């Protein structure tokens, strides 16, 4: 006799769990109101064309087809991926180096360094964007002044106003803001590595690099994975930094991310249906990343 199929039913779900559902109900209701309904509404809206007076016309998959044909959609997809991959790679790598440096036993004034490395994390992206917009300014920015003082450049460089440097500059600023998170996570991970194993590797004659490669890194694998996936999700959905630093993705769409395009489409062009369609496409990408994150947690690596 074959195995009975495990069929999902609501009555089974509630049976014997009623008290549990009562406890979960408040947060479930809150979740449905604050997250569930907006997601449902955005998905619904993506199948409609919304006019300025908010009358809706059902257009089926037209908005999605328009997105796939829109060069600015693909441009923002490309920018978002370059921005995310570069930012996260640099953040995790530099974060690891700083965490390793902070955990050296010979380091003096450790608390001061901890505090210094945490400062960028305490600032909101809007503040970071405004401050770096001044620092990187082509006419009176301090970076240009320093570069000229050190005779590295002769003329001022337009970091945010040229297609060549703009995305690079935004990645740099985002990395500066994000590194503290990676440092905190990885530093905490380093404290959990049993010192006996490190000492044993030294007794066995391993070099510092070998100890790092064969002892430290395998222990940090789980923390690195979680840091990477969380940073990837946060960077992918980021909006405020480019909105302030490059005024919504300029110059000429060079730093326009998917989130900036959604905002511009919906609130500058008032094409709410099309904006919702791009948001739905973005939702699926982020959903994929979240599933990956869940898998990583389940595997307990």
């Amino acid at each position, binding site marked *: 006799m074959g195995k009975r199929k495990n069929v999902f039913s609501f009555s089974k779900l509630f049976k014997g769990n009623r008290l549990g559902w009562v406890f979960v109900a408040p947060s479930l209701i809150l979740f449905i109101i604050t997250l569930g309904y907006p997601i449902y509404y955005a998905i619904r809206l993506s199948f409609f064309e919304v006019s*300025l*007076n*908010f009358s809706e016309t059902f257009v089926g998959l037209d908005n999605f087809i328009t997105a796939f044909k829109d060069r600015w959609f693909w441009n923002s997809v490309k920018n978002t991926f370059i921005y995310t991959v570069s930012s996260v790679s640099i953040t995790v790598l530099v974060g690891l180096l700083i965490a390793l440096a902070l955990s050296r036993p010979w380091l003096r004034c450790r608390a001061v360094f901890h505090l210094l490395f945490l400062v960028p994390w305490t600032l909101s992206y809007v503040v970071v964007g405004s401050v770096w917009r001044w620092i990187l*300014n*082509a*006419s*009176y920015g301090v970076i240009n002044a320093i570069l000229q003082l050190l005779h590295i450049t002769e*003329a*001022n*460089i*337009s*970091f*945010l*106003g*040229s*297609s060549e440097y703009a995305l690079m500059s935004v990645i740099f600023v985002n990395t500066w803001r994000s590194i503290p998170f990676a440092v905190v996570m990885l530093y905490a991970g380093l404290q959990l590595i049993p010192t006996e194993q490190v000492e044993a590797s030294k007794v066995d004659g391993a070099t510092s690099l070998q100890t790092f490669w064969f002892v430290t890194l395998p222990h940090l694998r789980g923390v690195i994975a979680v840091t990477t996936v969380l940073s990837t999700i946060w960077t992918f959905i980021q909006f405020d930094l480019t909105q302030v630093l*490059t*005024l919504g993705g*300029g*110059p*000429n*769409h060079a730093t326009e991310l998917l989130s900036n395009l959604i905002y*511009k489409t919906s*609130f*500058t*062009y*008032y*094409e709410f249906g099309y904006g919702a369609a791009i948001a739905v496409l973005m939702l699926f990408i982020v959903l994929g990343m979240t599933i990956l994150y869940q898998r990583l947690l389940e595997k307990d690596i």
Partner: protein
Amino acid sequence: MKRSNLLLFSLVLTLFASLFSAALVQVEAEDIVELRFQDWRLAEEPAASALGAIVAAFEEAHPNIKVQLEPVTNTERIEKFNNQFRAGDPPDVVRFNVTEVPTEISMGAFEPLDQFLEAEGGIEAFYADFSQYLVIPAIKDDHAYAVPHEGDSFLLYVNKRLWSEAGLDPVNNPPKTFEELREANLKLTNAANNKYAFGMYPNFQWLQSWFLANGARYFNEDYTETYLDSPEAIEAFKFYIGMYTDGTVPPGAPEVGYGDQIALMAQEQVAYIQGPYATWGNIVAGNPEIEKDLLAIPFPGTGQTAGRGTEFAIGAGSKHPAEAWELIKWLTNAENMYEFFVNGSMMPARMSALEKIDLDAYPQARPMIEEAIPNTGESYPAFPEWGKCSSILNDAIIASLLGDGEPEENLRSAATQIREIIAERK
């Protein structure tokens, strides 16, 4: 009476007294109407203080109305208002730029003013004192929705000393043609010393004045046709972009905002910038020393520039439209517009308020009132789809500055795209 009974009696008496006074306060509070007034000028000095004083005087004259000021930043204001309006909780009175008004009217975001205007003698009589380019966007299908408050045009603000050091005389011999300005630009630029001629703030609104100065226009009167690819427009566009590619504009123009442009002028890194009347005050606020060297001159060419302005409207769904109208009337009467000019440095939209200005007392206003405003060529574009169209035009400007395509091709492409959008409306 027992001591405990006395204590109890006093407690009950106190309770009744407080309940009674609370009820009295409640009755008084019910008589007072609280209006919400949302305005980005409330977040900008000196305009904020000037408006604050005008509103305080309104409250004094209308004891039954209390005005709750809602300052909002320029960047978030449109989205904030639209969200409030969609949620059924808009501010009672709100300020919008003239170019944004038709979009908001099409959304149904403003309360019609017809019933109030009837009491003022009708639409025509009420708006007779205002520049027509500010009135047209406020009216749709014979219904009025907004009242102009500020209105002015564009001038070039030059640093006389820097011009004089370059052997130029902007007072007696300002550039009269684009070619003369191009020659002046080259003389005013010394890139090795980080000194440049023109502080460019590239966007469709600022560009429009260069088009008008060259005899070109953006649109016809009812926005059913664009002239962006006319020969005059292409020539003006090439000149504008050329100022950057010639190296007479500081590097990084595509990232320059209004504040950056002012900072460049205040720090004397550029010899001139363009702007509306408020620009004078903004430059002086950045560097008071510069005022003695500051001079406003008209654009070369036809001298025509683009008209800009702001308007007040009542948020659709306002619970107190009659009181909101009283506030709008107060803010936009000739006396208070003049006060706002004196203390807030903003040009009035009413002719009668402009006439009150003593040009000997305010010499910096003379070129704006005597030359720029009478020479206003066309207003900022004002039609519902302009949001998307302006973005297309801005893209063409920035792409051309970055050398991404030829300026002429970029402008022609923008004109074609805008024409398609207009055609959909037609």
